[in-house]
């Protein structure tokens, strides 16, 4: 926005407001605030006079204190911040950064760790179960081998003895030569 006489008026009003709030006496008027040396940069000097006493200026320290107390109201009146609206010789107090009760990173870490531990437990349990299954299968195969007199010949994954049992009728062409099955 352009800085014109209306903005100057607003500035005077805001400073008067700040003085009223600080000293809590409602005698300060907008006409008490005087601006001078307004430049194109939009920088100027201002003084606050005291109308009750005879045209003297209120000491700078009081004005400084008043402005410091109401800094955020002054800033928001002009839609500016501490950096864009500067009062020379008035340093702004810094606001501490917001800190949540539990640091956020601990929460994220907890989530990640839970996922990892769940994965590990799952894999270990799966591995144990797989090993038990393999043990059971190998003992089953050992039992089968004990039943058969010779080593079990496997044809298409089915032990030949079950094939024989199932078929009930041995095809002489194929079963003629025992030696055709390679022994393991």
């Amino acid at each position, binding site marked *: 926005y352009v800085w014109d006489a209306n903005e100057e008026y607003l500035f005077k009003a805001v400073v008067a407001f700040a003085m009223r709030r600080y000293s809590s006496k409602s005698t300060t008027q907008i006409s008490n605030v005087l601006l001078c040396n307004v430049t194109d940069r*939009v920088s100027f000097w201002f003084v606050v006079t005291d109308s009750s006493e005879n045209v003297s200026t209120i000491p700078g320290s009081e004005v400084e204190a008043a402005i410091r107390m109401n800094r955020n109201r002054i800033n928001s009146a002009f839609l500016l911040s501490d950096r864009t609206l500067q009062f020379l010789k008035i340093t702004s107090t810094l606001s501490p950064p917001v800190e949540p009760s539990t640091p956020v990173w601990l929460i994220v870490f907890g989530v990640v*760790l839970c996922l*990892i531990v769940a994965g*590990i437990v799952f*894999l270990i349990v799966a*591995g144990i179960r797989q090993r038990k299954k393999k043990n059971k299968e190998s003992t089953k195969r050992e039992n089968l081998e004990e039943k058969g007199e010779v080593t079990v010949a496997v044809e298409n994954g089915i032990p030949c003895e079950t094939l024989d049992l199932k078929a009930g009728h041995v095809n002489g062409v194929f079963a003629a030569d025992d030696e055709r099955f390679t022994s393991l």
Partner: protein
Amino acid sequence: LSMPREIPKEDGRPKWDNKFQYILSCIGFAVGLGNVWRFPYLCQIHGGGAFLIPYFIALLFEGIPLLHLELALGQCLRKGSISAWNTISPYLGGVGIASWMVSVLVSLYYNTVLTWVMWYFINSFQEPLPWSTCPLNENRTGLNEECYESTAVNYFWYRKTLNITPDVTESGTLQWWLILCLAACWAIVYLCTIRGIETTGKAIYVTAIFPYLVLTIFLIQGLTLPGATEGLAYLFTPNLNTLKNPRVWLDAATQIFFSLSLAFGGLIAFSSYNPPKNDCEKDAVTVAIVNSVTSLYASIPVFSVLGFKATTAYWDCLNRNIINIINEFDLPEGSIMRQNYTAWMSLLNSSYPEKIAGLKLKNCDLQEFLDQSVSGTGLAFIIFTQAIILMPGSQAWAILFFIMLFSLGLSSMFGNIEGVFTPLLELRVISNSIPKELLSGAICLICFLIALCFTLGSGSYWIDIFDSYAGSVPLLVIAFFEVIGVAYIYKIQRFSKDVKWMTGRKLNLYWHITWRFISPLLLLIVFMAFITLQIQKPPSYAAWNPKYEGFPMKEEKTYPSWVQAICVLLAVLPCVFVPLVALFHLIQQMCRSKDPSFVPPEVFSPQGANN
């Protein structure tokens, strides 16, 4: 005399689910953090595009031959590094032990780097990012002094993450937050390597492919940032004069060598799980080329972001100067912009030189900002994090970036752990009674406990030491003996017959020449040059000392003598196994030859290798 061999029967050795898993594992092992934070830096300081010339020459004569050698060796012998070298020749058994040792040492400190990445990752969920602002000091009157003098990003890295001590001899205390992250990292490594390649083979699909996705996203984002083109132009503008400096050639050779993760034994382990009839030649060329292309591809977003950061810093510098001038001369707002800054400056300088001099304006130079190049952890944790703060939506970018770094490092960790795991599986006679899960758990637990010393205040100094001494010189020595061993002790004719049996093609002349002459010679030259450069300057390090006068510049300190002794020990310990084992076997042979009743064992031939 080599006999024609049959396909070895099913030996219960684990194998890859498919060829793609194997290739992806090798690529993941080779592509690591160095591709992202070392190659772009080297490209930049060694004359941009001109660096690619020595880089590709080194790739052709050193990288690809050595890679092919390791992959062919593992596939042919179907054993891990220790047993494989014992099989080639008992005198060369030390090479396998040396590479096993190096894998152990590197695994220790590499995972700590991943710990830092994880710490930054879990801190990226905060709004605003914790490294964007300085904390207040005790009485809340101003910013924390250490942070104020350096930058918020530096403070977060050196104080909040590392809590670094000013000297390597001051150990400081264990940082509990780093211990937590370290435990999580080792738990992740355990989760992925719990059953060897059965589990890493599944995990590698994610950890090897995901970084490429993120790099592409960063590429697109980076190219849209202002100042990206300056960064890229700066990176790639070739300056052929730098090629006259031998340092450039040395850096190219070492970069290729370390980038491909050769001589760790991990590649031998990976290829040992392959079916014997597999085209290892094509695999080697593929992996090497993908690694180099990834380096190039990664440097584009890195330099776009660096260019963006430099441009933003340049603009900030200009803006500060402009504000000072406007305040001084009471000019209206918006009269001086960046575009007409130089015109205004010349005008004001001619009319009011004293006033301008009195303002003490900083000289803003874009080149100067671009010149601030860093490699390694500084690039990722200081410079990149600073750039991320400036991007819109910084949390998302930070999260993506650190997950990408984590995946890159994790896939390299898989290779390291395989290099440790596979030889142990084969060495121990009682390996059948110990389930694989227990062995990998023991490895991870022991490594975690030892790596706790890297979480001390001085931890990052120790990691630099490990990286410079354990992860550099021994690898060169091991690789040299690998090539010599295969070419001259195992005899290249035998090896070429083996490779021909595996790939179905006769060995090209290129392989003969490189394996026999060029690669060993090159390795010897690189080794000599490396050692000479190391010896020339006394080993020193840059310490972060808030009490130093030149703070925030780092203080240059030299290592005390006991630390130097440790450095030498780290470099020598793996290498010493090579002569030790050879000597041991020589003595054994001499003792046995004196005993007339003893029949000397036949030299092992891998054809009948029943494993």
